């Protein structure tokens, strides 16, 4: 059910061309609005704080993580710092963490492939990747990634040879994880920006590798 695109706690008035169907706010949207307004009335939180946090959330996308990965690929000293302390490494690049979580960056190599999951809920490196996709939060992935990672990866089209070790990291507390995929072959001439374009959100979860290169890089 889609909601009307305006935030109804603004008191602006404007004429709608009501040819489009205005969706009825559902029960839970009404509850969310009521809870929020009561908290405002009790001066526990402010509308500005909510607006600001929505902006923060909107600013966090997989492009941030891709930038971290690309930088690690081109700068070995940065990569070492990133692997020692993922949160500090991201903060070096200006990615602030708005919560108390820490970050461990897990490097994929020829010998080790990392996959992240939160079997108990939906822990995910939100400050650097944005919000997780539904499938990451639903039962099939959460139940199965921890005991049949190879079958799960195969469903994403990823086949890991038997001589490569798989490590499945299950987040349960204060640490979040980000996979550092292997740098694709044939990218020696790529700029950091071009490299970042090869790094998808799913590669940083660990279900797929970074995009491979078969042609010249885009200008």
């Amino acid at each position, binding site marked *: *059910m*889609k*909601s009307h*695109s305006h*935030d*109804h706690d603004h008191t602006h008035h404007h004429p709608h061309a009501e040819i489009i169907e*205005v*969706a*009825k*706010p*559902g*029960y*839970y*949207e*009404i*509850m*969310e*609005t*009521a*809870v*929020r*307004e*009561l*908290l405002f009335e*009790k001066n*526990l*939180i402010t509308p500005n*704080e*909510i607006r600001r*946090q*929505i902006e*923060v*959330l*909107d600013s966090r996308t997989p492009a941030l993580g891709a930038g971290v990965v690309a930088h690690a690929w081109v700068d070995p000293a940065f990569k070492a710092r990133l692997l020692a302390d993922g949160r500090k490494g991201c903060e070096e690049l200006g990615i602030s963490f*708005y*919560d108390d979580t820490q970050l461990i960056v897990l490097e994929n190599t020829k010998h080790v492939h990392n996959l992240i*999951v939160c*079997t*108990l*809920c*939906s822990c995910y490196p939100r400050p650097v990747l944005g*919000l997780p*996709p*539904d*499938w990451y*939060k*639903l*039962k*099939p*992935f*959460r*139940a*199965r990634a*921890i*005991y049949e990672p190879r079958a*799960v990866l195969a*469903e*994403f089209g990823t086949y890991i040879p038997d001589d490569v070790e798989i490590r499945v990291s*299950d987040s349960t507390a204060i640490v979040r994880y980000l996979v550092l995929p292997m740098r694709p072959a044939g990218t020696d001439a790529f700029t950091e920006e071009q490299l970042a374009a090869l790094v998808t959100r799913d590669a940083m979860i660990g279900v797929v590798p970074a995009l491979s290169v078969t042609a010249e890089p885009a200008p």
Partner: protein
Amino acid sequence: MSQTEDLLKRLPNDIGGMTAEPIVQVEHMLEPWEKRCHALADVLDFHKILNTEEKRRGVEGLGSEMIGKLSYYERWIAAFANIFFQKGILTPTELAMKMEEVAARLPETPADACANS
């Protein structure tokens, strides 16, 4: 041995290792209210009014039927309401009255969405 002890021993969200279907790579753009709900959780955490762990415990406390039937953010807001009641931040009556007020003010809202709750 009680047949129901597993319900207490295994939390409804503790599903690592259970049999499940193939993964369907579904995702959706968050509804505005869902995003507001997420922002609300973050702001409550900053203020130490309701921390992430309390939120998790609150969702678990909804029980398996609600967890199975409510969507992700529906579970959050229901859990927040319960936790606020426990903490004395809101009362059920306050929330019910405010929900009625919100429902009445918004256009195209079926009044009985709240009246039947």
